[in-house]
């Protein structure tokens, strides 16, 4: 359904380029949930905005790559054609529920607007559709809520409205960009379950973006691990969880809180995410990697195939028992 190939998006910054997305490829099949995982600033949102065709340009610039959606390259589409895709075939839920709804329109107006752009139906029908949309996302008493303004709703409720709006036209693909990051922990779980339910009921494709591998475990079919604008590991969810191959993925998993580790100190990856304007030479993860070899500082290895569609951009073979890597 969606196939992104070698996508490169740079930002103009003083004195050069910031390589926010630097050659990302991934695929999403019909009815599949794909998770894009990575730390803050690794280029997840920029990838999502580029797929939607709403990347702010300038300062952003699409340097290369293709984004095929149902056989057509979205990057070559005219703006008018792209408008028919947005909201209708691909919809997006954003990271910031508090500010993503327009404060001067009622939520009913905003949901109905999403439908009105792409479909011709009469007003009474429209009202029914938007109430149903609110019901589907678990909004309490939607008949009254529909006349509320965004400021009258809590963060979780606003995110439900955003989801209702995204689903209003039954899109084939929904991009959810860290939809729970800004919410309370209890609400996070509710929204995550909502996505899981909706995805299963509607058999839609879902690109779920998150920095939290714990979330991924609950919904992902395929996982792409992203770092500094690059995909470092990809594979089926269980392969990534039970047989992580890339040192970065392993570090991410090790830093997850879990029941067995309760009480012990949480592991955190040493160092910090590189500034995309100055990504290190060679493997971008080498300054933080405990397995780094001499060659890693100058050469960035290609994808190693671990079978069953499981790839990682690091040749190190991990020895589970010894807890050590080797070549």
């Amino acid at each position: 359904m969606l196939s992104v190939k070698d996508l490169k998006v740079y930002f103009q910054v003083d004195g050069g380029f910031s390589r926010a997305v630097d050659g990302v490829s991934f695929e999403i099949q019909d009815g599949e949930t794909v998770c894009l995982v990575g730390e803050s600033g690794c280029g997840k949102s920029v990838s999502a905005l580029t797929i939607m065709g709403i990347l702010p340009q300038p300062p952003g610039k699409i340097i290369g790559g293709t984004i095929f959606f149902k056989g057509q390259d979205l990057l070559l589409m005219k703006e008018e054609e792209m408008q028919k895709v947005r909201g209708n075939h691909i919809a997006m839920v954003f990271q910031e529920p508090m500010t993503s709804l327009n404060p001067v329109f009622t939520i009913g107006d905003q949901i109905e607007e999403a439908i009105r752009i792409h479909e011709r139906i009469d007003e009474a029908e429209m009202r029914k559709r938007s109430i149903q949309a609110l019901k589907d996302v678990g909004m309490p008493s939607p008949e009254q809520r529909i006349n509320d303004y965004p400021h009258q709703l809590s963060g979780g409720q606003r995110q439900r409205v955003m989801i209702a709006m995204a689903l209003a036209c039954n899109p084939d693909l929904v991009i959810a960009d860290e939809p729970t990051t800004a919410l309370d922990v209890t609400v996070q779980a509710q929204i995550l379950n909502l996505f899981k339910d909706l995805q299963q009921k509607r058999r839609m494709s879902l690109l779920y973006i998150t920095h939290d591998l714990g979330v991924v475990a609950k919904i992902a079919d395929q996982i792409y691990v992203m770092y500094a604008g690059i995909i470092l590991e990809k594979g089926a969810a269980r392969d990534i969880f039970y047989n992580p191959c890339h040192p970065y993925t392993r570090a991410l998993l090790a830093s997850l809180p879990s029941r067995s580790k309760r009480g012990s100190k949480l592991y955190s990856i040493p160092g910090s995410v590189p500034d995309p304007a100055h990504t290190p030479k060679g493997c971008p993860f080498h300054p933080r990697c405990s397995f780094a070899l001499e060659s890693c500082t100058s050469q960035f290895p290609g994808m190693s195939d671990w079978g069953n569609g499981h790839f990682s951009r690091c040749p190190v073979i991990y020895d589970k028992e010894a807890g050590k890597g080797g070549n």
Partner: protein
Amino acid sequence: MLSFIGRSVIQKIVTLFFVSIVSFLIIHMAPGKPSQVDPLNPKFTPEMVERFRKEFHLDKPLYTQYFYFYHDLFTGKTVSWKDNQPVLAKIFERFLNSLPLFIVGTILTWTLSFPVGIRSALHRGGLYDRSATFFSYLFISIPGFFFAYILIIFVVNSFHVPVIGMETFGLESLSWQRMFMDRIWHLLIPSILGATGGIAVLSRYVRSQMLEVEGQDYVRTAKAKGLTAEQVHYKHALRNALLPFVTMFGLILPGLIGGSVIIESIFSWPGMGRMAYEAILARDYPIILTVNFISAVLVLGGTFVSDLLYMVVDPRIRL
């Protein structure tokens, strides 16, 4: 809602009361006395001054004078010290003269600033935006009187029409069309002059407001829905960008008085601003204080109107 209106009106009346006291004190503390206006004038004999002081209660303590003044004002009996004419009638006549200038100037300012500012914001950094920025700063920094003279010289030389005053004298015999055009010419130049500064400032403000709103998350949401660029800019962004201007809209009213002193003086326009200015020079307290009081009422009325408007346009403000 009703309680808000009630509270607001009471609050504003209290404010008005204090304004009346303070302005009364300031006028009386200012140097110069009305009875000394023209000591060289041979008509002002000491006896006359004394009679004058008595007649206008200037020999009484200040609080009594205050009481007399506002009592007269509310009963419509205040008269100018200069010519003994009723103040309210005088002000009303001048007000009618100022009104066309004010209306044309305000309409020009508010209808032109928005398209200019919005276009600048939407084409940020482009040729249009940079030229608009240049001219805005030019018109903001150029002194009004200087620009006025350039404009007058230009118009008089190229169109050969007189522009000083409200109309040309000695045209009564001409057809009404000619007289009408004469009036228009006289009105247009000072109005344009009054509007340029306003347009320069307001269009900058519109531009920055629009730019800020365009960067908001909900504008991105609107794009993600598949709306056209026009719908995104003019429905989702503009609606929010306009909110702060509603407050400013209420503050237009006081401009009726203060905004035009310089222009009315340059163009010898017999309006309110000039009358107030002349009254200050002549220490004609009743006129100064009455104009002052009316402006205070207009300011408070204006803020009241903008509070109400804000409640109508911004759903986050409901009382």
